[in-house]
């Protein structure tokens, strides 16, 4: 947080969208801004009301190069946006560089993600040096539907405004049917079982012909975070490694090791990598593959080092599984890649996709 700036004294703030970018339909800008404020109102007593005709606490505008403040923008890329700490006048305002390409998706800079970060400044947060944090200075695309405010940011904003008195009503814990279309966060084997992670729960397939059990992740491993992002089993050492953000936890047998979590940078990732999308140890090649955006790294478990020939493009080595991998695991020498709702059975021997399946096919669907 800003030294000497304890944030807004009031809890009910107003915002005004002063102008629009031509890159996106106005309705999509409205939605991105509204959802970006919701990221913060979900975890604090703050409320954000949009006004149209008078000065708001938080004025939102798109501008290029020099624009009525001391921080001119710099053209495409580089600086994407900036915002000002809580105070009167320009305080709280957020400016977005019109020379960037703004989007609701991943081609260009996702307005929801950048706005959520900038509104952190508007509310009194400084930058974080936790690579998993929203308030980390550099941009990193995350599917907005998968976005969850990281713990570091929750702690920061609640140190200013406290927690939300009336907790956001969690959806009634309806046990989702295992047969609805499902997007897995991560999939791994574990001593002959298969675990499918999604949000705060996991589906446990104990044997090929048993029905999958549904559990809360924390009922198995209280120390593991929810919304994990990747996991793989390394049978040689009877361990499963679970990833979230720039950290990983090692599960030996069924116990999380005392020295967990560790930093992914210890494995040899560059600092520009801030999360792992999927991971699998391939028994055929005895290599562990880490999938990040449209690339993958190959890791040698014996030497505990990254293979220097990577990173490589996913499509160059695993053609047909798409540009981005959500989850992956191995079964009977075949790799099973998951994207949003599909599953690709891939043969590393034949170097091609051998079957296209529904993502929940293992859950007897």
């Amino acid at each position, binding site marked *: 947080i800003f030294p000497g700036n304890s944030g807004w004294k009031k809890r009910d703030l107003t915002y005004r969208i002063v102008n629009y970018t031509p890159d996106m339909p106005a309705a999509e800008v409205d939605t991105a801004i509204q959802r970006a404020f919701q990221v913060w109102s979900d975890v604090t007593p703050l409320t954000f009301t949009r006004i149209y005709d008078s000065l708001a606490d938080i004025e939102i505008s798109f501008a290029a190069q020099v624009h009525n403040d001391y*921080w001119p923008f710099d053209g495409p890329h*580089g600086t994407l946006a900036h915002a000002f700490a809580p105070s009167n006048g320009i305080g709280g305002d957020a400016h977005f560089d019109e020379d960037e390409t703004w989007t609701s998706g991943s081609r260009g800079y996702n307005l929801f993600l950048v706005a959520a970060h900038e509104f952190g400044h508007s509310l009194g947060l*400084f930058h974080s*040096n936790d690579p998993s944090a929203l308030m980390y200075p550099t941009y990193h695309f995350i599917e907005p539907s998968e976005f969850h405010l990281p713990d570091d940011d929750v702690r920061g904003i609640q140190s200013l405004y406290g927690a939300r008195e009336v907790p956001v009503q969690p959806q009634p814990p309806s046990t989702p049917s295992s047969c609805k279309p499902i997007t897995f966060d991560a999939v791994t084997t574990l001593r002959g079982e298969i675990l499918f992670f999604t949000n705060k729960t996991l589906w446990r397939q104990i044997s090929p012909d048993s029905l999958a059990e549904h559990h809360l992740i924390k009922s198995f491993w209280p120390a593991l975070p929810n919304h994990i992002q990747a996991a793989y089993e390394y049978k040689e050492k009877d361990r499963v490694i679970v990833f979230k953000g720039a950290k990983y936890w090692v599960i030996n047998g069924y116990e999380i090791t005392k020295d967990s979590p560790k930093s992914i940078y210890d494995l040899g990732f560059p600092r*520009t990598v801030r999360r792992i999308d999927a991971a699998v140890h391939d028994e055929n090649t005895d290599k562990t593959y880490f999938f990040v955006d449209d690339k993958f790294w190959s890791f040698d478990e014996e030497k505990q080092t990254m293979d220097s020939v990577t990173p490589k493009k996913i499509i160059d080595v695993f053609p047909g599984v798409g540009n981005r991998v959500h989850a992956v695991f191995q079964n009977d020498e075949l790799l099973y890649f998951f994207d949003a709702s599909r599953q690709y059975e891939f043969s590393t021997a034949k170097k091609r996709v051998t079957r296209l399946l529904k993502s929940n096919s293992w859950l007897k669907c």
Partner: protein
Amino acid sequence: FAAETSQDNEENAKFAEEYLKKYYNLKTDGVRQSRKKTTSQFSEKIREMQNFFGLEVTGSLDSDTMEMMQQPRCGFVDVGEYS
């Protein structure tokens, strides 16, 4: 950094100087300072940036540091006073 730098090192140094001025309050307020002083301030600010991002703190413009500087980012400072 050595004066006799190749063209792209010169450009990297210029890019880095702009970056450090924006986000790490590097002061080059136009007053001619001794090269020695400028260089040490420059290296000091690089160390500060490398420390913030968890890079190896070398004080010099290595490739990891340049790669991090080239990441699209927020225009807010990372450390130092905020006015």
